């Protein structure tokens, strides 16, 4: 009898019913209608295999934060089981609202051309009331502002040429947020990479990673976009370039969800996809590059660990980088979900749960009297800014602001 007989590392049957996942589930803590990851995942799967009517619509409440998977001592892919069950069994058709929220690309393209109008309109009370009433997007939410000029446009116009000066190259997957809403983040990334002696290439073609499509039930479209991204990524990897990102969720989606939920083989490129902070930290740690910071940078900063960052296990890279800045008074927030979970918290039916989940985090942030919160996820940023009034920045932007670019360039020449 060998050890593997009658076991399957990919199976829900590795669950030993210890229930620690349910203890760590942010939704269980605030909403008793959610059966919890153990019952929604491995327990429920047995029943769904018996008869699909045992699919429970309460699975819609899952945030897909994957904190259950981090907690599981038996390595059961609980969150994946739940996501796959939703895609396979849910009878609910995605609504127009879900389509709008899921298609970050289309919305971004339309909105950034008319940014001032869109930003103004989305902020208007009557418009918010219509969105709340007709589309069921909660009126408390403020849509992230759209930038007038997309990052891609800026890059091609002002930065592309300069990249030819570098022999060492990385590819950058900017994602929707850095492209449409916060080009400064992407520009900051280019600024740091150039300062440490790396040129930046964009991918040949890039679409939204698909995380919002997956969570809103658009599996086929998600597969289409994932295949397009993987194609571009393969070309970059072929040139010997790592693919860097500035969003923990895009990174996690392309590394794990593509394989686990969309069932695409990404094993050839998975290890080449990394968060920029990880890449930079490892270079610094190996003594291959040096970062020189401004003398007068003084900030009291706390780091919030996004759920998908917790799942990646990479918070240590971002925090270590921020801690390198001499003038930073660093605080670590308790690792917990902020409640937004991408497009989840935008939905009217989830608003209340969303805020309840984040409440203790918001309190901790308010009590710390911070200059800003650092985090690697854009939706965490919106949630924390809306709920605490404290400014939130990506560690890359913080590094870029604190960096003495000239001195760094010199040190890495």
């Amino acid at each position, binding site marked *: 009898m060998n*050890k593997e007989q*009658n*076991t399957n590392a990919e199976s829900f049957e590795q669950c030993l*019913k210890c229930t620690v996942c349910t203890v760590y589930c942010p939704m269980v803590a605030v909403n008793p209608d959610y*059966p919890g990851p153990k*019952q929604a995942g491995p*327990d429920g799967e047995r029943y769904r*295999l018996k008869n699909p*009517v045992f699919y429970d619509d309460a699975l819609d409440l899952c945030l897909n934060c994957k904190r259950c998977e981090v907690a599981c001592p038996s390595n059961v892919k609980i969150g994946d089981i739940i996501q796959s069950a939703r895609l396979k069994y849910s009878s609910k058709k995605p609504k127009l609202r879900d389509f709008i929220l899921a298609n970050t690309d289309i919305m971004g393209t339309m909105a950034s051309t008319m940014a001032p109008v869109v930003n103004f309109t989305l902020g208007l009370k009557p418009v918010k009331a219509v969105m709340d009433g007709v589309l069921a997007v909660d009126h408390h939410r403020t849509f992230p502002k759209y930038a007038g000029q997309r990052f891609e446009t800026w890059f091609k116009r002002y930065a592309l040429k300069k990249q030819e000066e570098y022999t060492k190259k990385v590819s950058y997957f900017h994602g929707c947020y850095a492209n449409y809403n916060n080009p400064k983040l992407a520009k900051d990334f280019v600024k740091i990479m150039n300062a440490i002696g790396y040129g930046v290439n964009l991918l040949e073609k890039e679409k939204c990673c698909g995380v919002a499509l997956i969570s809103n039930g658009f599996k086929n479209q998600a597969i289409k976009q994932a295949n397009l991204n993987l194609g571009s990524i393969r070309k970059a990897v072929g040139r010997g370039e790592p693919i860097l990102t500035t969003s923990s969720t895009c990174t996690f989606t392309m590394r794990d969800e593509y394989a686990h939920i969309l069932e695409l083989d990404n094993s050839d490129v998975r290890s080449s996809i990394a968060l920029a902070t990880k890449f930079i930290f490892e270079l610094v740690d190996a003594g291959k590059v040096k970062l020189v910071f401004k003398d007068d940078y003084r900030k009291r900063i706390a780091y919030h660990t996004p759920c998908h960052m917790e799942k990646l296990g990479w918070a240590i890279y971002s925090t270590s980088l921020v801690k390198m800045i001499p003038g930073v008074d660093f605080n670590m927030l308790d690792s917990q979900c902020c409640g937004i979970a991408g497009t989840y918290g935008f939905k009217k039916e989830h608003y209340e749960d969303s805020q309840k989940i984040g409440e203790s985090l918001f309190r901790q942030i308010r009590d710390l009297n911070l200059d800003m919160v650092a985090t690697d996820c854009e939706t965490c940023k919106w949630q924390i800014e809306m709920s605490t009034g404290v400014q939130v920045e990506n560690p890359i932007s913080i590094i870029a602001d604190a960096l003495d670019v000239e001195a760094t360039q010199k040190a890495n020449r």
Partner: protein
Amino acid sequence: MSKEYDVIIVGGGATGAGTARDCAMRGLKTLLLERHDLSAGATGRNHGLLHSGARYAVTDQESAEECIRENMILRKVARHCVEETDGLFITLPEDDLGFQSTFVDACRRAGINAEAIDPKEAIRLEPSVNKNLIGAVKVPDGAVDPFRLTMANVLDARLHGAEVLTYHEVTAVVKEGDRVVGVEVYDVHTKEKKTLRSRLVINAGGIWGHHIAELAGATVNMFPAKGALLIFGHRVNNLVINRCRKPADADILVPGDTICLIGTTSSRLPYDQIDDMKVTADEVDLLLREGEKLAPELAYTRILRAYAGVRPLVAADNDPSGRSISRGIVCLDHETRDGIPGFITITGGKLMTYRLMAEWATDLACKKLGVDKPCQTADIPLPGSDITEEDRYASGSDLGGKAARGRHGSRSVEIKHKDRYDESLVCECEGVSIAEVNYAIDTLDAKNITNLRRRTRLGMGTCQGELCACRAAGLLSKANGCARKSVEDLATFMNERWKGMFPVSWGDTLSEAQFTSWIYEGVCGLDAFDKKEE
């Protein structure tokens, strides 16, 4: 000594319960006695296969015909105990494909709707089936839950006036001259003995009927045949998968409720070992080896437990050596056979034919008692059966409610989920709520955790009692008012769960058992309680 019954039935398996129902429906004053719990013997230790009869078509036409008739009847009268899954008889490359036409012809002759289908179609219908198959025949096999079936018969017997006593062991058959006039019983709970009188005693003790017959002074030559089975952690298949060849070991994979099971082996067993059967390593190996040929996925599927049942095979009266053993129904009139009036034995047969066996026994009893009423058990649905398949599996969000409807059919309206407390799950793997447990305690005579398991599936899931057993013990102690008894009960139950896990204790099953023992012994101190008791 008080009242006299028309008939006392000994044995609370499917046959005894079915006989009690039939007798009560024909107006007889009926008492059913069981020494342990309902369906604690062979009834609860088989495949749970709703045979189409196809398995016997080639070798035993009569059994095949009985099976298909009863199969169709149970779909009608015991809807909530049955899953109409259909089944496949597959031919693998090492089997003789020529057998298939013999098989299909024999099925058709027996009235079984068997249809040879393209192997590709078989894979489409049942994706878990061995992809190397070279032939497939579709038959109306299904799954039947023997616990529910027996319980439903008992419930209906009661509704028709029968009395039912579990944990009452027959210690002697009372005779006046040659005539049997009653039995002496030992009440396991009160530890008292009493004599109960009746005009007829029907021995429906299955393999244990050998002993009951002896008490009456009759000899029934029984040959215990042990059959071992393995339960897997989830449903790998949704259609029953059989091998299309002469019946052999481990060639049926049945999907039953949330699990699937492979079986069986067949080996002779000395009569003195029928109460202490252990599944051997060789049997486990055989079941796995053969099972994987039906559905290769079994090799990667967790095994929950192993168990064995014993078939009550009866030798023909003219052959005491037991060479010509029949699997058919044996109904013995001991008055004509042995000169013992007032005593009838109903045995042989199989779970599938329990109703027919009950009909035969009741027909004979009625003849003896001069009652002229026809059998109606094939036409009148059992309690709970009055539910459409759509209602039985209607969607909704609460797992406990949905699972209970699947288990108790229309009777589930009595399981009242009034608030969140009632809805809370006792058994998380099988979706058994507090309300369902209380229903089983109040209405279905569940006196201990093992009884609850048979009434509800509590403790039958992946964790094998790890999370639910202590909760169930708590609810029982509330109902019984005795915490000490519940703790003993808990220890017994956990040991019984371990007994089934032991033969397959490797991989996740071993980890689970280890974790369970850590909870119950390490955290709850159950073993400390045991030691104090000693």
